[in-house]
């Protein structure tokens, strides 16, 4: 029997987890439809100041919610995400729902198909609330590069939410979605998660299909969850992970039940602490909070702390910005105003049409990266820049091979500082790039990483602890993050 009058008093939308939302729908405490509608009302009243959403997909959400309610009416066991309201970063294509990648050049683009990760969430019963704001083509660390306006950090509206998945992290932190998908090419899931005080997981390269993810740098792009708890990240990963014939780089590696794995004890696990991550440039407050978190992993969880060295760390940013921009310059060549997206109006010839479309359609940071990438790949500079960066990528991978011979996971700060002020780095691209100093290397090496909240600064700004793991060993980093999350909650 369907509940006649729905009261939300007992269900605080800000505290809902995937499990509690799904169970509330399963146990008929609320209908999926009412849950979706209350989220849309909440977004309507609260998202104006935050601007996490670019587009709401109400019709699609309510149709899916009705399907879940019909199943519940029949008394069936609901799928694992039944009725759970989720948000999707606007770099993942959604059939019939405008998808812009935060760019003017795609401002009117309505995809004809669904991204695999999005389709898998919906098959598992999820309700898609809408598409979240992000830096244009996921290029940025502050969300200030969106063509549709910046996102404010819900913890302090004068500060950035981080980027490029700033909208997804802000929506989850503000309680305007139970969880979200983001994408990570140089830190774009983990850094905004740290800045907004939520959990962000970047899986191993190849763990989650990239089909339908608008390409930035194909050898570095990952899709992953942004959630309120580590368990929710484990749950979402289990659903979106696994081989997909539509992405030849998606790996044929069995998917574990990560929700089971997080329950396994972490006692005796060896955690590496790389000295290179605790030097110059690290905000002292962030350093102290991360050190306290590491002590708690040792003393309360029984992990063994092992000093390690990743000697090429300082070369990660330069290698990253050459490889990522080179790949981007190639991937973004497709935006020419012919088949989809924006086309400049006044152009006499085809060549002029291409150039004007791209010049008017792309924002400043995207043009900067296309220029840098094209330069790095151009005749006379290929060996000096692009090839050199790829060789350094091998050295970075060797650093981790070496370290992982001796440890099970590596713990570091996620970002050298808490969220910075809006506009603070907007005029200095190099300063902005350095905000990614602790995250880019995992993308280059292809290993998984998770950011979990580890306290806040005196100003009340969240700080993240990053746990990095071996290829396809998401189980271990989720376990460590989960153990820490519980140890911190208990103290």
């Amino acid at each position, binding site marked *: 029997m369907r509940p006649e009058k729905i009261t939300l008093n007992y269900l605080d939308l800000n505290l809902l987890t995937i499990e509690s939302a799904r169970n509330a729908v399963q146990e008929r405490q609320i209908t999926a439809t009412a849950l979706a509608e209350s989220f849309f009302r909440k977004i309507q009243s609260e998202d104006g100041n935050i601007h996490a959403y670019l587009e709401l997909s109400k019709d699609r959400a309510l149709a899916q919610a009705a399907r879940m309610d019909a199943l519940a009416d029949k008394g069936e066991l609901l799928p694992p995400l039944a009725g759970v309201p989720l948000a999707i970063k606007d770099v993942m294509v959604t059939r019939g729902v405008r998808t812009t990648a935060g760019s003017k050049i795609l401002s*009117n*683009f*309505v995809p*004809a198909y669904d991204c695999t990760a999005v389709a898998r969430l919906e098959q598992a019963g999820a309700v898609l609330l809408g598409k979240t704001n992000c830096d244009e083509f996921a290029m940025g660390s502050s969300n200030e590069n969106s063509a549709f306006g910046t996102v404010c950090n819900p913890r302090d509206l004068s500060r950035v939410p981080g980027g490029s998945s700033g909208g997804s992290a802000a929506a989850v932190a503000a309680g305007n979605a139970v969880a979200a998908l983001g994408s990570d090419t140089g830190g774009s899931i983990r850094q905004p998660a740290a800045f907004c005080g939520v959990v962000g997981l970047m899986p191993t*390269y*190849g763990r989650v299909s990239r089909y339908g993810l608008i390409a930035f740098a194909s*050898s570095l792009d990952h899709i992953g969850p942004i959630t309120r708890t580590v368990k929710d990240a484990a749950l979402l990963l289990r659903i979106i992970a696994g*081989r997909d014939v539509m992405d030849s*780089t998606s*790996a*044929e*590696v069995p998917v574990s039940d990560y929700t089971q794995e997080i329950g396994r004890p972490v006692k005796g696990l060896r955690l590496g602490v790389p000295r290179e991550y605790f030097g110059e440039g690290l905000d002292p407050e962030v350093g102290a909070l991360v050190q306290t978190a590491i002590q708690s992993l040792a003393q309360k969880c029984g992990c063994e702390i092992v000093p390690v060295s990743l000697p090429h760390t300082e*070369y990660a940013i*330069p*290698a990253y*910005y050459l490889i990522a921009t080179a790949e981007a*310059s190639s991937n973004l*060549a497709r935006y*020419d105003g*012919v*088949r*989809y*997206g924006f*086309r400049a109006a006044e*152009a*006499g*010839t*085809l*060549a*002029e*049409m291409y*150039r004007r479309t*791209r*010049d008017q359609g*792309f924002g*400043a940071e995207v*043009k*900067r990266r*296309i*220029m*840098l990438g*094209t*330069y790095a790949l*151009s005749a006379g*500079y290929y060996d*000096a820049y692009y090839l*050199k*960066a*790829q*060789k*350094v*990528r*091998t*050295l970075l*991978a060797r650093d981790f091979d070496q370290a992982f011979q001796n440890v099970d996971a590596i713990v570091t700060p996620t970002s050298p500082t808490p969220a910075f002020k809006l506009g603070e780095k907007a005029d200095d*691209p190099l300063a902005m*790039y350095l905000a990614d100093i602790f995250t880019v290397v995992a993308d280059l*090496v*292809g290993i998984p990483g998770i950011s979990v909240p580890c306290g806040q600064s005196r100003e009340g700004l969240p700080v993240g602890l990053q746990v990095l793991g071996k*290829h396809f060993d998401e189980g271990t980093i989720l376990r460590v993050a989960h153990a820490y999350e519980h140890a911190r909650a208990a103290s």
Partner: protein
Amino acid sequence: MKVTEADVLRVAELANLELTSEERVRLLKDLNSIVGYVDRLNQLDTTDVPPMAQVSDRYGVDQAKTSSERFAYASRDDVLHGLRPSLERQEALKNAPQSDGEFFKVPKVIEK
């Protein structure tokens, strides 16, 4: 290495970007700042280091196999029939800035 004004023009041409004169000035400054920073890679001797273009090259599941065998699961036999149908024409044209219902339309390429 120093990026020159001529480099900016040449690269903009390669990248199909029509830059305004303000953009050129700004990009010259930004590219020099970034290139100056990435030049530190030259501190490293990479003489015998192989390049890493793809994560899966290095961390494929079965290291005993050579690269192409390792990814055999990602390929299939050639078939004549039974392929996934491609997008319907009308669907594919829906997002076109300009079309005649059958083709994408662009400014004239060849003069009579």
